[in-house]
């Protein structure tokens, strides 16, 4: 009998038709290990070499989120048609004693075999557990209703999208057309989470809350690779504060150039709010949000690479400064944070139309 081929990261290569049998054997080899699973986590990528990279990311993720991981590597342009599969387990010591393991199945599909993605991959889901589908990169033709209708939570990162306007149109269409409630999760939105929590905590202060109607200027400094996060943060502020879009005002600076964009809103009391988005290559993904008006100024700021943000309120006779946690920078860590929070992400759906309108105003 031939020795199964071992891949250093993906584990043992197995025939696609024997995956379940081989998984069973994998567990039988060591009875001391505990198989844990709270969800199916599918990770999809069309980038070369993504399987290995994603396997490493899943290993980190499974330390906190027990799952059956299904990695999918796709090469649609390959001339040959093939499906290969590997199985392995990611194990972690729980409290330094018990070995908790999560199984992983990796698929590489090439050529015309990519059309068999749905049947091949989804035959290996752990039953009764939700399916979290992490899509990496641009939305390709494979993103269609027969795929997303099987998914409970669809995770993507819009920050790298070349044409976010049209891709978000497809996401919106998917939400409307999915045959089951589809929760969509943009990691660009997840990157704004701790900034949003910090802003909310600033307005727990009665001085800030009473000054909300005085806010006349917003500035968001961001890293150029994370413009989408900055726009989503602005869309959230506008929606939650009930600021309506206005006809663009004549401004002292150009409305939009490579590093700066300006928007204007109107509050419910008729006050104009000028919002400036400033790209800075030295910034953290989100570097600083400043809200000012009247004699009050509040900010949430983060140095690049820092693990925390600083929340600050300055008003006459009132100064508050406090640290808070920052969002992680890597996609895998962001996914981990998101999985820990769960929820239906209804707030994202609420701000999505406004965000799309801001995208189109650029």
């Amino acid at each position, binding site marked *: 009998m031939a020795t199964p081929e071992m891949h250093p990261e993906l584990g043992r290569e197995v025939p696609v038709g024997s995956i379940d049998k081989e998984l069973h054997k994998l567990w039988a080899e060591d009875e001391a290990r505990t198989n844990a699973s709270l969800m199916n986590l599918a990770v999809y990528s069309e980038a070369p070499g993504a399987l290995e990279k994603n396997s490493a990311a899943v290993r980190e993720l*499974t330390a906190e989120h027990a799952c059956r991981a299904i990695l999918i590597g796709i090469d649609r342009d390959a001339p040959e048609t093939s499906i290969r599969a590997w199985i392995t387990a990611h194990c972690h010591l729980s409290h330094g004693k018990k070995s908790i393991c999560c199984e992983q199945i990796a698929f590489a599909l090439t050529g015309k075999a990519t059309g068999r993605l749905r049947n091949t991959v989804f035959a290996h889901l752990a039953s009764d557990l939700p399916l979290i589908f992490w899509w990496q990169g641009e939305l390709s033709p494979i993103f269609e209703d027969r795929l997303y209708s099987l998914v409970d939570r669809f995770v993507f990162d819009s920050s790298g999208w070349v044409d976010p306007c049209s891709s978000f149109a497809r996401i919106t269409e998917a939400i409307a057309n999915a045959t089951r409630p589809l929760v969509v999760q943009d990691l660009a939105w997840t990157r704004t989470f701790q900034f949003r929590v910090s802003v909310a905590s600033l307005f727990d202060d009665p001085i800030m809350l009473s000054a909300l109607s005085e806010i006349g200027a917003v500035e968001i400094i961001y890293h150029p690779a994370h413009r989408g996060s900055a726009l989503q943060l602005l869309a959230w502020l506008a929606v939650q504060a009930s600021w309506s879009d206005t006809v663009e005002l004549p401004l002292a600076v150009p409305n939009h150039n490579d590093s700066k964009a300006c928007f204007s809103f109107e509050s419910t009391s008729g006050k104009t709010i000028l919002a400036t988005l400033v790209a800075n290559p030295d910034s953290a993904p989100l570097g600083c949000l400043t809200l000012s008006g009247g004699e009050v100024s509040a900010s949430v700021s983060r140095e690049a690479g820092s693990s925390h943000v600083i929340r600050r309120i300055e008003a006459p006779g009132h100064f508050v400064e406090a640290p808070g946690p920052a969002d992680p920078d890597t996609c895998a860590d962001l996914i981990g944070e998101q999985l820990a929070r769960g929820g239906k992400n209804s707030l994202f759906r609420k701000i999505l139309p406004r965000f799309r309108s801001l995208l189109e105003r650029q």
Partner: protein
Amino acid sequence: MTNPFREDLVSRSRPEPCTVVIFGATGDLTHRKLVPAIYNLAIDGELPPGVKILGFARREKSDAEFRKGLEELNRKVSRSGHDDTIWASFEESIHYHQSEFTDLAGYQRLAARLDEIDRERGGKGNRLFYIASAPEFFDDILTHLKAAGLNQAAEGCWARVIVEKPFGTDLATAQQLNEVVNRTFQEKDTYRIDHYLGKETAQNLMVLRFANAIFEPLWNSRYIDQIQITCAENLGMEGGRGGYYDKSGALRDMVQNHLLQLLSLVAMEPPTDLSADGVRDEKVKVIRSLRQWDSPEKVAANVIRAQYHAGHVDGKPVPGYREEDRVDPESMTESYVALRLMIDTWRWSGVPFYIRMGKQLPKKATEISVHFKAPPGVLFNALAGGVPGGNVLVIRIQPDEGISLRMVSKIPGTSLRLEPVKMDFHYSTSFGKSSPEAYERLLLDAMAGDATLFARRDEVEEAWRFIDHIERAWHQSENPPPMAGYVAGTWGPKEADELLQADGHVWRRL
């Protein structure tokens, strides 16, 4: 006006900025639990900006000395580690105030100091007083807080008090303390802390019962045979705790508060809502429904008390209870107690609740086990040997928090043989993220004005009313029930086993 940015961000009550004043600030609780809990809340971003800590204690210390001592302990015990940058910012909000607990002038200076801190660092005047001192100072602290006007909050602000256990030593002292507390603070501003209720599994009890449709229909005397609550400790009177413990005992130290709280959560009716009073209304009904014993004979028939004798725990020799440091050699304080309780309600009629708590037992474990009735005596029960054991649902409170269900399965093979098997859920296996410490959750709730996980006055007093019957029988009757003995490192006295054997039951083996 509500904060529009809070929508959908956090599914819990919102904590408000305040100054936390800790009485007994140089003590172990402050250094090991309270300040690390507040630090971890800051790390997790749960703490609102503007929260300040002011330690109040008798020893002379500067702010810097106080901060240094807290930092040293935080490095050792903080759940999420210690970050120098965060601590540097965090410690700016920590201050120290020296005063005797009995000195009114010290409280007047405290009031001025709080105002000054608010002026300097920005604060609207919310105060959370945490009484973590020795219990003999509770009265003085509360009385002087009132005398200094600190019980009254400024317009639009609040003043709340958290009181640590022991909340009285019997019904009379609890009532007296409650009178003092309620003369100083309104009941809605009084938070009697029981850290067991802040534990994840204790909170999960209500979720298990009321968010899963499969359990509640079975949660009654028709299907449940008995319920056991065990709190086992493998420690004795180390670290000089014999002095306190010998005045208290297992019944007052653990059963009156922690274990009766767990019993309430297991046995209560579904609350009408999840509000603090909605939940506590149902919990207190359970305590009120406990069958009372009005004679020493009835107490003796239902309660076993015991002290450990010299033995071995974890392979090490340990002295007997009466030989422990700071314990009276003729002490009649119990280090172990086992009770058979009956709850006289429609739901629980005829179902015994067995509670046991002991020191120097073989291991540390707190759990609730729900033992279901055996299936009817036909089919498999008619086989030789019958069905091996009924279904048991176990809720592990600590350590290794989780839930398991024992059921019966056929052993593979050509013959029909049955064996019990266990389905097990471990928090640590399914959720890799560590749970917050109980004090983190409870402090946050107090800042948010959510008293759901704190004991209400009537709960505390009803629990003491029940416990007092037993204490009177033990210490004031002419014919007190005997004090049993057990060897340290064993699971308690044989009398406790006999208590259950009389009902045809046995203690669950942990």
